[in-house]
């Protein structure tokens, strides 16, 4: 058994010859909050796709708590304890926030247990607590399609927590949020980091500075460009060239 919660070795994913991930190596300690940044198309989402079983690696392997994830399907990986939030919020629009949370929080996900099991007595409280945490208590019982974008983002984070995974993969949680909402989500993630391992992918540098207390990883063209504390990474000339330098030049 290795002590690492996540270990990626020599990972390559190619789509018809185009290498979205190229010999990527990555590892993470339990309890860590890791932020991954990188320009558009760097392969960040693809990286999560491999971990969650949506995409199979062409070469290389991904291990979670020492277990190879290859050949496991999405739901099996989820049950191992990996939860994922998608880049664009993906919640069940016709269900209410309460139902969304209870669907992901359900402990027994087989067909017959879903049909026949009684709701565990604690579930009601857990879900009310979660609704409170993500600030959706007043809208708990209206269809989720009526929520604002920010509320949807928060609901999806709530769904993730409801699964009580060991590792949370969070893809761009603050895209399209106001400054205040961004800060709320940041605080939420910091609270969650006390009891979970988390990977956050983000573009918003202000936000990254808020939450990146530990290591930051920079992806570029499918590989790790560099890794280190936010301050060091920000000042690394290679990073400035491929990523941070881009923003001002695009503004002009």
């Amino acid at each position, binding site marked *: 058994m290795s002590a690492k919660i996540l270990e990626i070795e020599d990972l390559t994913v190619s789509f018809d010859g185009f290498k979205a991930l190229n010999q990527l190596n990555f590892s993470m300690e339990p309890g860590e909050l890791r932020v991954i940044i990188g320009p558009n198309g760097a392969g960040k989402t693809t990286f999560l796709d491999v971990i969650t079983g949506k995409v199979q690696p062409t070469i290389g392997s991904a291990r979670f708590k020492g277990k190879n994830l290859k050949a496991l399907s*999405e739901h099996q990986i*989820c049950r191992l304890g990996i939860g994922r939030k998608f880049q664009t919020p993906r919640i*069940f629009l016709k269900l209410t926030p309460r139902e969304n949370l209870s669907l992901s929080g359900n402990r027994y996900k087989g067909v017959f247990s879903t*049909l026949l099991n009684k709701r565990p007595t604690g579930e009601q409280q857990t879900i009310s607590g979660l609704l409170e945490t993500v600030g959706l208590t007043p809208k708990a*019982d209206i269809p989720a399609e009526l929520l604002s974008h920010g509320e949807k983002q928060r609901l999806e984070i709530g769904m993730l927590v409801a699964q009580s995974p060991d590792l949370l993969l969070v893809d761009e949680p603050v895209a399209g949020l106001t400054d205040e909402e961004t800060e709320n989500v940041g605080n939420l993630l910091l609270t969650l980091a006390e009891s979970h391992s988390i990977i956050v992918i983000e573009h918003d540098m202000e936000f990254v500075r808020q939450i990146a207390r530990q290591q930051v990883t920079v992806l570029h063209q499918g590989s790790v460009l560099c890794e280190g504390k936010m301050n060091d990474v920000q000042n690394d000339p290679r990073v400035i060239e491929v990523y941070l330098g881009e923003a001002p030049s695009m503004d002009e």
Partner: protein
Amino acid sequence: MLRAIKGQIQKRPRLFEGIGVVAIALLILFAAPAILTAMGQEFRVNMLGRFLALAIVALGIDLIWGYTGILSLGHGLFFTLGGYALAMHLKLQLPEGELPEFFTLYGVKELPWFWKPFHSFPFSLAATIFVPMLIAALLGYLVFRNRIRGVYFSILTQAALIVFFNFFNSQQKLINGTNGLKTDTAKIFDVYVGSDDVQRILYILSVVFLILAYCLSRWLTSGRLGRLLIAIRDDESRVRFSGYDPTGFKVLVFAVSAGLAGIAGALYAAQSGGISPKTMDIAFSIEMVIWVAVGGRASLVGAILGAILVNFSKSILSEQFPQVWLFFLGGLFLTVVTVLPDGFVGWLRTQGVDQVRSLLGRRRLLTYPSLAEDPEVEYERQNLRN
């Protein structure tokens, strides 16, 4: 005020619904035949019985399509299998040593092996449900496990339908081919199936099975499983990432809906004088979907109403306008699908909300700010705008 009433209904929804279902069932059981007979339209009682059987398939289609989002265009297969299972049993109600008449016509001397278990009444009843369920479960498992979805699934169901159609059509020596199995002149418990007494019992059975099918569907679509089906319909891959394997759920629902089709087929066959491969026409399977679309997808009451209304309009139109009724019917479908995309029941639901909204709209200036921000009110306003 409104809220208080709403609260009360929400507290005891099961009771209210139960009373409603029983009341409607009693009406169909006793009032409908009496009224139709008094109007001199006695033949319509049998017609209604058949349409009630069709409403059972419609429930099955609604489960698999309306709730789970899987469009089956091959339910005629399960319907027909159910019909044959019962008809084979009826055909065997003969004096010792005699074979159903068509066998002698084709020179068959001995009963084919697969006919033999149909001597047993319990076996035949079980077969009307479980043969369709098994075939659906097998087909569904192979297809869903390989993540075949959408149009590809629909095409596959049609292909299965065509395979079975051709098989049944061509096997004169096994199951009388195109002619199918006539049940009118067969006997059950020593009475002709076509007799008034048996037909009356079949009518009652249709009502009873429709209610049972409704209760089953209601149970499946409420609670956790129902919400999961909706989740699968709206975003199947997200369901996987939440830790569920959709395959089992889809197989279950597909099999249940096939079982319902089987029961419906048996009841329909016995009330319409027999069964033949004609019910495996592609058009008939598509019609089943149309009933649900007209009545209202993802509404169980809608599916039942759709099946009964469409079939009644079909027969009344064909009697009144033998030349052009098909155009009328086509027009009806087009109108409903374009003007009422959620079917009749869907339309009624939004109309209901509309009325509440216009009430609220008139009073909006008088409401307190807290009410104006109430998500329920907001929800209704939003819906009004659409």
